[in-house]
């Protein structure tokens, strides 16, 4: 018989070891999955995890790694603040879209005027767009006690429709020969979020992600505000006793997540994507939730988890291309990662005893 015995103090060792264990378990379970699909498991795992970094065309893929990891890390850092406080913002995808729309709107209005102020102004507007979109569930929760989970999630679909309307309507490229989508900001020097170092994929969004990691580390693990946020997530009554005002906490938790997601949208639309189209959003906002948990809601963990998730994205694409794996199999594979992480989490708080324990 297997029994779980609660640890009096959470294990430091396992809180670091479980993410590694989860990755290994995912590789094994994923390998079995791929074998059932008739692919060679070891090769599939190699294509996903090894080839993008050290394979034949690795120089191209390594750049892609940062391009994909940047928004994931940036969004996850913001979400982690809310998650720590027990505020479940599931709508980062919508906030990401709104950040992109706000900043792209400014750029397209200014076009073709060149100015050094345009790009910083777009950054501010991007953050504002995401922030305001996140304030809708925040205000509703504070005033009426609505569930931020449902409201933020549903607002994703509202944002997607708004995105499509903008792409086909007000923001459509007047010189686009009727094709849907806005002007490409890559052709607008003042607004273009260009690569900082040629061939690395490093753009301003990646810099922002690194700053976000450092900032949220300082906030959550050094500053008293972060301490109170963590208390609120652990024990809401103790948080009130410590002087936390719940309404402000909700605003901060959702607001940070929204602003960071908005920023990610802004850097994406002005850089790698370049234009507003109806298929602009590719699920970064949702994947960032996995990244946040995979990184144990800790900024450094999120940095590593973001890189890992980006790797499975790129590797997954390659596996589809080279081995003909269905895209659903790749999604299952990514889902397994979160599943195993949550499962192994038990080890942090519990000890496993084999055999009979005197009951």
């Amino acid at each position, binding site marked *: 018989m297997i029994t779980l015995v609660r640890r009096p103090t959470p294990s430091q060792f396992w809180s670091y070891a479980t993410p590694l264990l989860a990755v290994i378990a995912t590789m094994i379970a994923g390998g079995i999955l791929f074998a059932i699909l008739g692919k060679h498991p070891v090769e599939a795992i190699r294509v996903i995890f090894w080839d993008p970094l050290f394979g034949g065309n690795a120089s191209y893929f390594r750049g892609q790694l940062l391009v994909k990891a940047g928004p994931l890390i940036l969004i996850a850092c913001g979400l982690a603040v809310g998650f720590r406080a027990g505020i479940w913002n599931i709508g980062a995808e919508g906030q990401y879209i709104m950040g992109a729309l706000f900043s792209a709107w400014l750029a397209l209005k200014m076009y073709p005027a060149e100015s050094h102020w345009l790009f910083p102004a777009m950054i501010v507007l991007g953050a504002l767009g995401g922030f305001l979109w996140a304030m809708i569930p925040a205000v509703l929760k504070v005033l009426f006690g609505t569930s931020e989970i449902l409201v933020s999630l549903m607002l994703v679909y509202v944002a997607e429709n708004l995105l499509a309307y903008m792409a086909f309507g007000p923001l459509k490229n007047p010189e686009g020969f009727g094709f849907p989508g806005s002007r490409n900001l890559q052709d607008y020097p003042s607004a273009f979020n260009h690569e900082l170092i040629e061939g690395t994929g490093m753009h301003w969004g990646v810099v922002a992600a690194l700053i976000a990691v450092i900032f949220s580390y300082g906030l959550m693990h050094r500053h008293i505000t972060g301490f109170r946020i963590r208390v609120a997530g*652990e*024990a809401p009554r*103790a948080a009130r006793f410590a002087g936390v005002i719940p309404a402000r906490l909700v605003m901060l938790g959702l607001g940070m997540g929204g602003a960071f997601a908005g920023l990610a949208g802004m850097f994406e639309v002005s850089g790698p994507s370049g234009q507003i189209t109806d298929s602009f959003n590719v699920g970064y906002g949702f994947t960032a939730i996995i990244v946040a948990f995979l990184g144990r809601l800790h900024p450094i963990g999120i940095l590593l988890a973001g890189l890992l998730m980006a790797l499975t994205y790129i590797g997954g694409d390659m596996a589809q291309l080279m081995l003909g794996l269905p895209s659903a199999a790749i999604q299952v594979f990514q889902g397994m990662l979160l599943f195993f992480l949550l499962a192994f989490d038990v080890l942090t708080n519990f000890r496993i005893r084999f055999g009979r324990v005197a009951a």
Partner: protein
Amino acid sequence: MTELLKIEGLTKAYPGVVANDGVGFSVRPGEVHALLGENGAGKSTLVKMIYGLVKPDSGTMHFAGQSFAPADPRAARAAGVAMVFQHFSLFEALNVAENVALGMENPPPMRQLAKRIREISTAYGLPLDPARLVGDLSAGERQRVEIVRCLLQDPKLLIMDEPTSVLTPQEVEILFHTLRKLSAEGTAILYISHKLEEIRTLCEGATILRAGKVVASCNPREKTARELAELMVGAELKVTDRAERKLGDVVLKVSGLSLAPLSQFGPSLKDLSLELRAGEVLGIGGVAGNGQEELLATLSGERPSAPGTVSLMGEDISGLGPNGRRAKGLLAAPEERLGHAAVPAMSLTENAILTGTMRKPLTRNGFVDQGAAKTFADEIIQAFDVRTPGSHVAARALSGGNLQKYVIGREVLQNPAVLVVNQPTWGVDAAAAASIRQALLDLAAKGAAVIAISQDLDELMEISDRFSALNEGRLSASRPTQGLTIEEIGMMLGGAHGMQEAAV
């Protein structure tokens, strides 16, 4: 007379702790027998084995001359053992008769059952109206329902677990009448308590448990309460040292304070007023659930009240939150240790930061100074003799008494002008309780004002200068504790809550 219940060598071990180690004692028919011991001494495990809730690892029980090993409570009840638990298992939305019927194997028709309830309850001096909703009953009346439910089974042995903790002194008096009548009719009663005076008035025999073992059997009437306590604790009990205190100016003034309930069934606070002088300890007594939690929440600032209701040293602080009040010197320690006064999963150091940042230099420009926080935590651990491997340990790993010492120590060491504590020694062993009381007295001797909210009247008599009763959200006018009798306190606590004893 032969024994009704005879227990020999009963042992029960849980992982890491032997709850009962070779326990043996016996109860005669009609005897009121006390089971005495501190929290965690093994009283609950022992009675759970008698009632068939827990299976012993070894040892034998005999009941009415026959070998007795109940597989479940149903078997125990069939043999003639009944139990009234400390926490009632009643449905508030059902009436008395329906609640009683739910606990029976083959309930008779409602009308007949109601008649039986009326008969039995009046016969034993516990009148009950079978048609009333349990949700409308006071704690004392709810206990009656539980007792009557047991009496309907015509038990030979009635086990009562801490029955008086929810009662006022008058209600206790009524209960004792009933128990004596039962005993006179030959029903044995196994009475679990740590209230020594009660046991000395009620019981003829006592078995004292310490750390799972029987340490003494005696007739409690031949011992003083102090002797019993020392047997229970296994050490000489330190008497709290109540130094002469000089009263200063009024530091805290509450006037006309009203507050809506915290929860659906909670009471509201109604027009509360009090004055507290420097160096004074005000004891606020009352059965839990009469507004104690609400009073603490509004004084601590978690639930600020209307302007002009609370003032500290002449300054209106009604609108301030907990940290604003801390900065001005009003500190509090709530009743619930895990999840309110402390965060269970966080370390003691982090729990020091929880309330310590306003009065101790634990932050610099808003950033937490881990070194200073650890020093403060170690200081609390040292000064209050908190038994823990270190300040890095999670709060939930500490025993109740140790965590309570930590929580009280954290506030005391911040040199408050006013400290409000709710149930400061609830669930705490006697030695820790004594040291907590001493800490509160020492704090007052240094010139701070203390409000102690507690259900334990002995405790309040021991430490407070004045006494007030909190009953259904109303606070009585305060009276000096010196010369206050237990009857007077009982009347202040609402007497028998409208309950009456039937003429028997």
